[in-house]
């Protein structure tokens, strides 16, 4: 059986996020209630399991093909794209004014999760359309909006984000693509970009490249970067596609995973005939891109959740079928009966459940920032999101890699054999800790920007929220363990991360362990809260809610201590990083 949405989890966790962030009180969301959320989750699942999931392995096996500047997507991609577009899913959370459906993020999040689980390689265009549209909405002139937005939101055209260059990856300030002003107010774009997802493909009539480039007299570094809209085909007055805009795909990468998604090298303006238009202000391109980047990072974190769920579903099914070894009574058993296999499955189950909860809570927080009139609430939500973004992105994707490994371990030798499909999950997951900012970049963002520059405000509020939840909960092992971890975290903040005398190079060396500790504690917190809710609802469904309590217990016993060990690492002064000479 291929992927099926974890419907019950989704429904319940969406409801929890909706209630925690009190979305029911928001006037503008009255039409977007939980009933609608459930109806949409239901229909999206049909599409994900019926159309996208069956193509996932096809894409992996066939990959994209490149010849003569043209990219051919795998068998079935084009039709699936047309169906996806015609079903209106691209405009899911984009404004109705431009042909979208304007759904709140809390409903879009589970829908996105289903796309990511069922066929991550395919669906990358959706996040690009979402992010590209949001940039245009916030920064572009009305003229540019009118030219591009409806086409993008309805999926007639796709979006490519062109940031990375051979010498500018994590450090975008180093990029050199040129934008030369023309008399008519447009710019001539000239340069090479690499790793551009869906930079070229055969599924839509036009591709709108959002390109970061430098004008001739721009300041050096990241303060001199501007953002341009550069279509593959120039757009005629009447909105139709016109002349070719001198954008060439010079090759696609042969990758570890995501074979179905073309990762393109693009050459702009080989013949000095590539025209771009400025989006927003000169030299403020990175700022505009950062707006997108935050969303893209959250969406990348959801990729981690989606892939973990897929790994879980596959491993769980296999573990019930594979008979090997004997139980206590000497009878041969399915491997799920072995406690160690169950442990691995619970790693997958507890982590994906907790991260899903965190992802949905963040989505609901975004709804607060976008829909609430209460200024204080909006401010608080913004701060919380800013803090949680690097944690969620970094931790969920790191976990997805580990969990895909656990899933392969459940399969034994068959996990190492490609035909079972589980190895694909591991290969696809591998990129998630790299693009949209590596884990290293996330951890520095967390430690320096989100904690130190903020003087610890957002993080103390987060800790306070955790402590309120712990105080309201009954005294049980889950809450005791969480409480101890929160205390340890508070101490590490005091002595190390927030310390005015901290050695910054030393902090950088432990930033990723710190991020992992934050991730584990946030997940343990989610599960502790959920276990409390589950206890209240237990009479309705003993098995489901009883299981939620068991997950919280499992996590606090097996995973939370890893977070605490990472905290210990953060405080060890002599760790050898500085001392060792390579």
């Amino acid at each position: 059986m291929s992927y099926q949405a974890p419907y019950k989890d989704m429904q319940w966790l969406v409801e929890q996020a909706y209630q925690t962030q009190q979305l029911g009180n928001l006037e503008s969301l009255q039409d977007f209630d939980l009933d609608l959320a459930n109806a949409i989750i239901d229909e999206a699942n049909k599409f994900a399991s019926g159309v996208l999931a069956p193509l996932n392995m096809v894409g992996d096996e066939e990959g994209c093909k490149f010849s003569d500047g043209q990219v051919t997507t795998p068998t079935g991609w084009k039709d699936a794209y047309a169906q996806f577009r015609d079903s209106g899913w691209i405009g899911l959370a984009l404004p109705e004014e431009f042909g979208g459906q304007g759904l709140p993020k809390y409903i879009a999040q589970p829908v996105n999760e289903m796309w990511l689980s069922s066929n991550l390689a395919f669906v990358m265009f959706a996040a690009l359309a979402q992010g590209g549209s949001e940039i245009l909405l916030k920064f572009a002139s009305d003229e540019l909006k009118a030219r591009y937005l409806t086409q993008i939101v309805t999926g007639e055209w796709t979006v490519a984000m062109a940031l990375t260059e051979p010498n500018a990856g994590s450090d975008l300030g180093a990029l050199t693509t040129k934008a030369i002003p023309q008399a008519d107010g447009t710019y001539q774009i000239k340069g090479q970009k690499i790793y551009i997802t869906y930079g070229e493909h055969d599924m839509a009539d036009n591709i709108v490249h959002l390109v970061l480039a430098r004008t001739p007299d721009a300041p050096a570094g990241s303060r001199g970067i501007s953002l341009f809209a550069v279509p593959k085909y120039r757009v005629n007055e009447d909105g139709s596609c016109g002349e070719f805009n001198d954008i060439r795909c010079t090759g696609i990468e042969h990758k570890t995973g995501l074979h179905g998604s073309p990762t393109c090298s693009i050459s702009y303006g080989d013949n000095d005939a590539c025209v771009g238009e400025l989006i927003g202000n000169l030299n403020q391109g990175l700022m505009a891109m950062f707006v997108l980047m935050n969303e893209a990072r959250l969406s990348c974190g959801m990729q981690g959740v989606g892939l973990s769920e897929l790994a879980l579903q596959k491993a769980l099914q296999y573990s019930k079928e594979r008979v090997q070894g004997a139980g206590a009574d000497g009878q041969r058993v399915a491997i799920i009966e072995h406690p160690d296999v169950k442990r691995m499955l619970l790693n997958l189950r507890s982590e994906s459940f907790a991260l899903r909860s965190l992802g949905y809570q963040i989505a609901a927080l975004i709804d607060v920032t976008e829909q609430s009139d209460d200024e204080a609430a909006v401010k608080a939500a913004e701060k919380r999101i800013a803090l949680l973004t690097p944690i969620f992105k970094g931790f969920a994707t790191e976990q997805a890699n580990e969990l895909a490994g656990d899933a392969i371990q459940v399969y034994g030798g068959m996990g190492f054999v490609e035909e079972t499909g589980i190895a694909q999950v591991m290969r696809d997951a591998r990129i998630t800790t790299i693009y949209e900012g590596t884990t290293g970049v996330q951890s520095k963002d967390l430690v320096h920007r989100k904690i130190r520059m903020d003087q610890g405000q957002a993080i103390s509020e987060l800790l306070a929220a955790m402590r309120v939840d712990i105080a309201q909960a009954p005294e049980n092992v889950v809450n005791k363990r969480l409480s101890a971890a929160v205390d340890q975290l508070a101490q590490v903040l005091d002595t190390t991360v927030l310390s005015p005398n901290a050695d910054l190079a030393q902090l950088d060396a432990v930033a990723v362990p710190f991020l992992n500790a934050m991730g584990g504690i946030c997940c343990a917190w989610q599960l502790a809260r959920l276990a409390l809710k589950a206890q209240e609802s237990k009479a309705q469904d003993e098995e489901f809610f009883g299981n939620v309590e068991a997950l919280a217990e499992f996590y606090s016993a097996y995973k939370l201590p890893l977070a605490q060990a990472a905290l210990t690492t953060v405080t060890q002064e002599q760790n050898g990083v500085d001392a060792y000479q390579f």
Partner: protein
Amino acid sequence: MKVLVGVKRVIDYNVKVRVKSDNTDVDLSNTKMAINPFCEIAVEEAIRLKEAGVATEVIAVSVGTSASQEQLRTAMALGADRAILVESEDGAEPLNVAKAFAKIMEQEEVGLVILGKQSIDSDNNQVGQMLAALTKRPQGTFASKVAVDGNSVSVTREIDGGLRTVKLELPAIVTTDLRLNEPRFAKLPDIMKAKRKPLETKTFADLGVEAKQHIQLDKVEAPAARQGGVKVGSVDELIQKLKDEAKVI
């Protein structure tokens, strides 16, 4: 011509069915429910008739608890124009359902009724036939093809060993088989619009139907767990086992 389609809320076919511990019924608490797959095919056929200009209006009808509104909304997201819920806590017995449909057929002056041939929960395969008898209208069951032509409809039926095509005078009752069509996916904008399409709630009493209980559910048991197979040494041994142990020949 108005087309009436039946929509039943049943356990989702992806869900593993569980029996209540006291064996009184199937355990439906907190289980995922969905439109009966045969009803979904009925809805699809009706929408195609509307798209072809044959039907003027598609009305989805469900007899069941208020939760069946979910499935009616789904039918409207797929393209039904409006919906009627005949609300009933338990009375979804075939004869009661058929009587309700008979009344609605009369009130709405329906030209064609399309129902699933059976629902995947109780597997009765009765409502269409009963409705035909009650209304004295012709029936074409197990349809794999439906073609309306003026005042009649040709229905190709799947029967043992082949296909039989019958021509029925309208109004008529058709029940769907699996191969009739492949239901579409609902489009997102249509899911949103379905929220605002009219959904009328009625009771059996409103329709002048007296819902009677004709069936009593005594006991529900899970099927026996599958036994492991054995290897037979010869054809003779197989035949002997089929005769003596399985008692099937």
